[in-house]
C-alpha cells in the first residue's frame, strides 16, 4: 500500500513540477506577527524580500497556516519570530529549523530574562507581549539590524544606519507617549482589557493593568473573574474598559453588563490593538501608529 501511495505521489510530482523559488538574489526573510514584519521592513527596506505569515487582526495563538506558507517557510533564508511561546507550537518548529540551513531568530532572546514578567505558577513561562515596552522594542531593533547584517554583510552599514534611525523614531515615540500619558492623573491610570496583553505596557508607563482572561486567548473568563473585576472597576471608579482587536468583543461586553447591574456605569473606551497591527496601509498598520493610537484611545477614554 505504501508503494501505491508513493506511485501516486511521484506521478503528481512529475505532473506538476514547477519551481517556487522567486528569489531575485535578495535574502528571503519570513516574519510571524505583523509587529515583527513592520520592524524588519523598517530596517531591511527593499534590500531584502519580506514575507509576513500573520496578517492584521490575526491572533498569533489562533493563526492557521495556508498552503502558501509552506513555500514561504521552505524558501526562507532567515526567519524572525517573537518567541516565548507566542506563536504556540510554531516556536518549537522554528527552533528545529536551524538544522535545515534556515536561520531562525526569536527576537525575545535579546531581552534580559530577569526583566521579563513570568508566570506566577511556572517560572520558565514568560509573558510574550514584549512589543508593548518601547525599550524592549529598541533592543529588538538593534538585534534585527545585527542579524540582518550578519546574513547580508554587504548591506551591513545600511541596516545599521536604518536601525539607528528607527531607534531614534522609537525614542521620539516614547517621549510623545509619556507626554500624552502625563495629561492623565496618576490615580486614573488603570487599564482593564480582555486578556493579559498589556502587562509590559503597564510596567513601562505606570498603569495598573487588569485582564479579564488569562494569557491564553483560548481560555474563557470565569463568572467569578467577571464579578471580581466588576467590583474592582466600581471601587476604583474606572471610567472605561477596552476591547482588543484580536479578541472577541463579548467578554468585555459581559463585564460592562456586570458593572451596570450594580448601578454603576462604565463605557467601552474603544478597540486597542494587542496581538496584531491594523490593516496594512493605514496609520495603525505600523508599530508607531498602532502604539500612538492605543495610548490616545486609552488616555481619551479614561480622562
Amino acid at each position, binding site marked *: 500500500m505504501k508503494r501505491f501511495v508513493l506511485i501516486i505521489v511521484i506521478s503528481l510530482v512529475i505532473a506538476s513540477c514547477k519551481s517556487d523559488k522567486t528569489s531575485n538574489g535578495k535574502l528571503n526573510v519570513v516574519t510571524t506577527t505583523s509587529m515583527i514584519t513592520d520592524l524588519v521592513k523598517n530596517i531591511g527596506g527593499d534590500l531584502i524580500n519580506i514575507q509576513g505569515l500573520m496578517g492584521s487582526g490575526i491572533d498569533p495563538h489562533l493563526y492557521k497556516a495556508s498552503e502558501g506558507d509552506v513555500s514561504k517557510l521552505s524558501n526562507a533564508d532567515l526567519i524572525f519570530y517573537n518567541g516565548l511561546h507566542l506563536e504556540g507550537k510554531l516556536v518549537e518548529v522554528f527552533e528545529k529549523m536551524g538544522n535545515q540551513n534556515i536561520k531562525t531568530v526569536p527576537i525575545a532572546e535579546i531581552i534580559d530574562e530577569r526583566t521579563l514578567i513570568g508566570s506566577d505558577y511556572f517560572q520558565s513561562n514568560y509573558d510574550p507581549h514584549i512589543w508593548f515596552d518601547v525599550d524592549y522594542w529598541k533592543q529588538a531593533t538593534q538585534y534585527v539590524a545585527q542579524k540582518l547584517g550578519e546574513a547580508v554583510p554587504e548591506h551591513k552599514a545600511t541596516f545599521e544606519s536604518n536601525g539607528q534611525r528607527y531607534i531614534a523614531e522609537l525614542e521620539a515615540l516614547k517621549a510623545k507617549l509619556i507626554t500624552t500619558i502625563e495629561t492623565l492623573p496618576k490615580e486614573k491610570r488603570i487599564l482593564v482589557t480582555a486578556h493579559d496583553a498589556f502587562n509590559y505596557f503597564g510596567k513601562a508607563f505606570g498603569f495598573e493593568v487588569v485582564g479579564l482572561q488569562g494569557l*491564553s486567548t483560548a481560555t474563557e473568563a470565569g463568572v467569578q473573574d467577571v464579578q471580581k473585576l466588576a467590583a474592582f472597576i466600581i471601587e476604583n471608579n474606572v471610567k472605561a474598559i477596552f476591547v482588543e482587536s484580536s479578541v472577541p468583543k463579548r467578554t468585555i461586553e459581559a463585564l460592562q453588563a456586570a458593572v451596570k447591574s450594580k448601578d454603576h456605569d462604565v463605557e467601552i473606551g474603544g478597540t486597542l490593538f494587542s496581538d496584531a497591527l491594523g490593516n496594512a496601509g493605514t496609520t495603525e498598520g505600523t508599530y508607531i501608529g498602532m502604539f500612538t493610537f492605543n495610548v490616545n484611545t486609552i488616555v481619551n477614554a479614561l480622562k
Partner: protein
Amino acid sequence: MSNAQIEIQIIASLVAIACAIPGTFLVLRKMAMISDAISHSILPGIVIGFFITHDLNSPLLILLAALTGIITVVLVEYIQKTGLVKEDTAIGLVFPILFSIGVIMIAKNANDVHLDIDAVLLGELAFAPFDRLMIAGSDVGPKSMWIIGSILVITITLLIAFFKELKVSTFDAGLASALGFSPVIMHYGLMSVASVTTVGAFDAVGAILVVALMIAPAAAAYLITTDLKKMLLYAICFGVFSAISGYWMAHWLDASIAGSITTMLGLLFLSVYLFAPSKGIIAVMYREKQQRIEVSLLTFLLHLQNHDEIEERHVNHLNEHINWQKVRSKTVLDLALKNNMISIDNKVVSLTEKGKTFTLKAIDYIITNEDSQIEDMKDDFFLFRG
C-alpha cells in the same frame, strides 16, 4: 515542487491510511464519533503531563494524552454496557466531562500559561515537514512521518493478525464468544488503536481532519461494497485520493491544507452518495422508475389476458380503460412490443405466446402470494428492462 510539499503529501497519505483502517471498523460498529470524542478528551492528559514536567514539549504529554484517549473508550464502554443509554449518548456523556476537567485544571492552576491542546499537539500539516527527526546528527525526515508510519505499521500488523477475529466480533459478537475469543478484548484493542492513531494523527494533521479521515472514506466505501476486505481497500483509496487532491486544491487556492482535504472528503462522499452503483441516489431513483414501468406493464398484460373483446384491446381505448396518460401508455406499449409480449394488428393489441406464458406465470405467483418470484422471472423473459 519542493521537498516540503512532497513530504506533506506523504504524511497526509499515511495519516489517511492509518485512519481508514480503524475508521472502517468504527463506522461498521456505529461508533464513528469516538474519534471526535478522543480528540477533545485528551486535554486533561496533556494538562496533568504539564503539571508533572512543567515543559510543554515533553513527550510525556502526548503519552498521557493517548492514555486519556483509552480511558475515554473504557468509560464509554462501561456506561454503554449498563444498557441504560446508547453508544452515541455514552460518547456524549464522557468526552465533555473529561474535556471540562482539563479546562478547570487550567483555570485553577495554570491560567497564565499558554496551555491548550494546540500548544502541545502541532496539528498543522503545513509545518509538519519542518519538524524533523534527527538520528545521530543526520536528518531522517519529518518527525510526524515516522510517528504516523510506526502507528500504521502496528495497525496493519494487528489487522492482519486479528482480521478474522475482528470481522466476526464486529458482525456477530455472540458468535465470537461462542468461538472462544472475547469480543470485549477485540473491542478494547480496536479502540486503543483508534485512540493512539487519533492522538498521533492529531499531532500531524489536526483534530477536524482526523475525524474526517476516520469517517468519510469508510462511510463512502460502505455505500459501494459490503465485503469487509473491499471496504477497507476502498476506504484507504478514498482517503489517499482526498489527501493528495485536497493538498493540490489548497495549493491552487492558497488555503488551509487540512481544510481543503476535509472539503475533498466531503465532495468525495457526496459523489459516491449520488453515483454509487447500487446504493447511490441516482441508481436507486433509476431502479424505482424501472420498477414502476414494469408494474404498469404487468397490469397491462393482465388486462389483455382478461379481455377478449376487440374494443377493450384497441390502442386508442387504452388511455380511458386503464386510466393512463398518453406518454405512459406509449412507454408501456413500446416496452411490451420490444419484449415480444404483444402484437399489434390493425390497432388492436393481442398477447403473443410469450406474453401469455409470462402473464399466466405472473398470475400464479400473485395468487400463491409469491410476488418476489416475479422479479426473478423478469430476467428470463425480458430482453429490455423498463
